[in-house]
């Protein structure tokens, strides 16, 4: 492992890694040499103040943004050099996503929203909907299959978004402030379900949050500050 990278748990296989990633938006630098590695099956919380670059780091790890320098590796393979259609296939087939606002397609029913990743991957409609429906009982959504996003509470819509993120069995789930728009109780439900389902499936999770209570569900946290990643400092190591 590269010296200076916040360490993943020992003996665990590294599944996704950022090395010295630099990324700007126009003249504004967002990441200034960010490095982090995530072990397979690990739940990692990425914390930091607003504007620190934590969401940009998530977008780079997920292949949504391409770094200007440095590299992102997924399962040992550089993804920054992939063509857009290859990165798109990677995101569709191997990654799942949950954002702050569920971003459900309002014209589709809840079960059609959940089935979307399967349909985009080429599954038949009947099979995709059947697999989607399996998630409704699991996430306490029974009876909401035919509802549209406007007919659900924020917590219900976010659980539907979570089902959509997990339905295709992704290797890595990226969650950006997944409870940011929810009250404490609904947020707790979402995090319990997210971490429970991820551990059941062995899915690696990278969750960006500014909320300590959300980070407390993770195995480990890193802090992004001024575009760089820092690991927690153990007592006694400060001098």
């Amino acid at each position, binding site marked *: 492992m590269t010296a200076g990278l916040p360490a993943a748990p020992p003996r665990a296989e590294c599944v996704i890694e950022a090395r010295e990633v630099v990324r700007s938006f126009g003249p504004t630098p967002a990441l200034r040499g960010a490095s982090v590695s995530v072990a397979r099956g690990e739940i990692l919380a990425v914390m930091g*103040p607003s504007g620190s670059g934590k969401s940009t780091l998530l977008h780079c790890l997920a292949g949504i943004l391409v770094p200007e320098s440095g590299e992102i590796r997924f399962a040992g393979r550089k993804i920054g050099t992939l063509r857009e259609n290859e990165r798109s296939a990677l995101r569709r087939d191997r990654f799942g996503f949950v954002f702050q606002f569920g971003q459900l397609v309002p014209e589709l029913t809840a079960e059609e929203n959940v089935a979307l990743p399967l349909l985009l991957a080429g599954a038949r409609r009947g099979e995709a909907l059947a697999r989607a429906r399996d998630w409704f009982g699991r996430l306490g959504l029974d009876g909401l299959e035919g509802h549209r996003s406007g007919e659900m509470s924020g917590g219900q819509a976010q659980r539907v978004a979570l089902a959509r993120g997990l339905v295709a069995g992704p290797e890595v789930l990226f969650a950006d402030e997944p409870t940011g728009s929810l009250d404490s109780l609904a947020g707790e439900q979402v995090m*319990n379900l997210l971490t429970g389902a991820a551990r059941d499936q062995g899915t690696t999770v990278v969750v960006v949050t500014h*909320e*300590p*209570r959300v*980070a*407390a*569900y*993770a195995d480990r*946290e890193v*802090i992004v500050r001024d575009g760089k990643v*820092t690991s*927690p*400092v*153990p*007592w006694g*190591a*400060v*001098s």
Partner: protein
Amino acid sequence: MVAGGAEPGAGPERKRYVITEAGVTEVEAWLAEPAGPEPHLQAVLFTKVVLALMLGRPAGRYLDAQRAVHLARMRELTEVKRTGGLLDVLLADYGLFHLEGDLRWIDMTGARLGALAREVRR
């Protein structure tokens, strides 16, 4: 509270106690009286930060270390919530929200370290 009769059990006899009317009144008064909001002034952490700045020590690193310890405790309490009953959840929530309050103070202080350093070194 006054002693009542004895009650036989599997082991030695147990003495039964009965709450008096005065006791009932006292408990009701205690329940009805709001507890004073404790200020939790973070005296130890506050002192460490100020002293670290005065001595030119890495106050930000002390805050980071404290954040890690707080988050580790929050992780333990979250596990208690996951595996415990509703009363455990209630108690763990109490601890979690207080730790979260501390962490907000740590974050705010971390964001103000530059200005604080100028203030204490004047």
